[in-house]
């Protein structure tokens, strides 16, 4: 469907002097994409380096700003006119004590509990509104972060995530609801945030953060908040923040324990000063493997939101140079002083890292899932296991999970928790065909490797674990 696009005077030199052009497209972004394809020299003046429209480019559908419609997704029809309307702005140089934002009366009322505190006041609230915060991960930590930062009036919140909401997330990820299961986490988080505060601009980045895109995404934000659940991304976020000179509000959670700090290499240590190298893969289980108390990310994420707000309004003492450890079972907060490591490879006195590296490799993660050939005899799929059992083959099933997991669901297997395996190997027969399983296949892979090294030749790991069995073989079993 062809739509009329109005070209403003300054851009007509790229459209052969035409003041309007007819272009195909079902939505605003399709039409604009076609415009930039047809007139390639126009592109840098319409789009910023990150692929979004430049901040001074307004798009009107007939007489309505698309920001108040469905933005780029706004549908267009044949009788519509799309106008590119540049915002004409400028001004004298000078350092700004107060950013270029105004608070409407509705906002003044909304933030009144902030405004009556002198530490925040109008100046602090305007700084919040002018600020741009990036949350990496819309999960356990990202949930309270997104909600509290939005409620507090942070003007622009970017979120990086590429997952969909699963039912197992809902025990802790309060930005998502039961109705969101199966939706993209970004769409779900954006909706919740808008519900809390419609004044907030949400910038979704539906990508996996990588060495290729991290600098480009992070550079547009004032504060980066790390809500990731793996070491590779955590080192990536740290290094990108150091290279860009931005503060990194760090948080991590596991079972009943949490950590919080603010890494800002310009004035203090970075994550590498604290942990120069990642642990060997598999040594520290993820929350999916080891579990996490649902309220814990609520506490740690809220502390991260607190530190983010303090950084923006410039009040109080931040956690730069301090690491706080929270033990929920004992209920204790401990504080450790962190020092900048002069030998730190990225923020030390003579750094050796000047660009982002391959973080999967750095963290010992294979570039691709284990090759099929080498592991064919070491792995068994749930379908193969089912077939062998149905044929009545003599297989010894070994469950290496914890007893409380065995209580949830099991496959009538012999139970030896992974940690007890070295001491209880005598319960196994070295000549028998053994299939080891756990929940998803990570711990059982370690167990199988350990057994092979200990002389058990015929050990196979059930890929995907009992979770794959429940999904693909016996849906009557509960998943957890």
């Amino acid at each position, binding site marked *: 469907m062809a739509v009329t696009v109005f070209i*403003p*005077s*300054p*851009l*007509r*030199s790229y459209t052969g002097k035409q*003041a309007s052009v007819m272009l195909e497209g079902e939505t605003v972004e399709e039409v604009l994409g076609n415009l930039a394809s047809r007139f390639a020299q126009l592109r*840098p*003046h319409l789009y910023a380096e990150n692929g979004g429209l430049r*901040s*001074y480019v*307004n798009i*009107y559908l007939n007489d309505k*700003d698309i920001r108040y419609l469905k933005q780029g997704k706004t549908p267009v029809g044949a009788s519509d006119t799309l*106008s590119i*309307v*540049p*915002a*004409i*702005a*400028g*001004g*004298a*140089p*000078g350092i*700004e004590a*107060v950013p*270029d*934002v*105004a608070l409407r009366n509705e906002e003044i009322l909304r933030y009144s509990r902030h405004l009556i505190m002198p530490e925040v006041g109008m100046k602090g609230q*305007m700084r919040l509104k002018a600020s741009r915060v990036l949350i990496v991960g819309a999960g356990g930590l990202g949930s309270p972060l997104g909600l509290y930062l939005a409620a507090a009036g942070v003007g622009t919140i970017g979120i990086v995530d590429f997952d969909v909401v699963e039912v197992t997330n809902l025990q802790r990820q309060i930005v998502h609801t039961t109705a969101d299961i199966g939706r993209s986490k970004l769409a779900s988080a954006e909706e919740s945030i808008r519900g809390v505060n419609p004044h907030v601009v949400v910038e979704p980045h539906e990508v996996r953060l990588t060495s290729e895109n991290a600098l480009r995404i992070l550079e547009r934000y004032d504060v980066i908040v790390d809500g990731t659940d793996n070491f590779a991304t955590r080192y990536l976020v740290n290094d990108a923040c150091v290279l860009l000179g931005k503060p990194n509000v760090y948080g991590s959670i596991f079972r009943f324990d949490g950590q919080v700090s603010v890494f800002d290499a310009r004035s203090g240590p970075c994550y590498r000063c604290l942990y120069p190298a990642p642990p060997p893969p598999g040594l520290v289980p993820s929350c999916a493997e080891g579990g996490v108390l649902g309220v814990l990310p609520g506490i740690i994420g809220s502390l991260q939101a607190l530190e983010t707000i303090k950084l923006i309004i410039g009040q109080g003492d931040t956690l730069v140079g301090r690491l706080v450890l929270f033990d929920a079972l004992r209920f204790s907060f401990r504080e450790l002083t962190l020092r900048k490591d002069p030998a730190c490879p990225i923020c030390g006195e003579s750094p050796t890292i000047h660009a982002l590296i391959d973080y999967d490799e750095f963290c010992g993660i294979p570039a691709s899932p284990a090759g099929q050939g080498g592991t064919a005899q070491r792995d068994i799929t749930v379908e193969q296991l089912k077939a062998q059992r149905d044929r009545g083959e003599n297989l010894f099933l070994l469950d290496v999970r914890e007893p409380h997991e065995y209580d949830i669901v099991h496959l009538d297997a012999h139970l030896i928790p992974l940690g007890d395996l070295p001491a209880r190997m005598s319960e196994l027969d070295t000549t028998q065909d053994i299939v080891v399983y756990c929940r998803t296949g990570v711990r059982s892979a370690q167990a199988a490797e350990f057994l092979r090294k200990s002389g058990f030749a015929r050990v196979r790991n059930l890929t995907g674990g009992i979770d794959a069995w429940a999904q693909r073989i016996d849906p009557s079993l509960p998943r957890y």
Partner: protein
Amino acid sequence: MIRIGEDALQQIRDHGVRTYPEECCGVMLGREVDGNRTIDAVYPVDNVQEVNRKRRFLVSPAQYLEAERTAAERGMDLLGFYHSHPDHPAAPSQYDTEHALPWFTYVIVSVREGKADDLTAWALRENRDRFEQASVVVSAPAAHATQPHATGIPAKPRKEL
């Protein structure tokens, strides 16, 4: 190089003095013939910036579209916008560069202690990295502002700034 009528020039200066200590902004209309620009008419628009008006100006989208319409109706080109820098030099700021558009001419008038001072003209370089200054040539008021250079002979420059 841009030519600008003496009347238009005076209107820009007067506008900057009127809004001092806040920034003023306005529309510049005229003609571009073979790369030579002549500004024949200017008119003020409201600075809709809500805060920091001593350091910032903003033209509303509605006023922008109105400027395009006015230019088209009068058979002129929308050549650019002017604004003032109260108590600051007539040179573009980083903020000006970030918000600038290609092709437009930007005229900046410095207003010091309420009096109009230097006036300069600028255009954004094609790669957007910075502005390039254009010389300003004051031309005599055109007899028929809506149809300049009807004879094909440009008005003679009187004074180079």
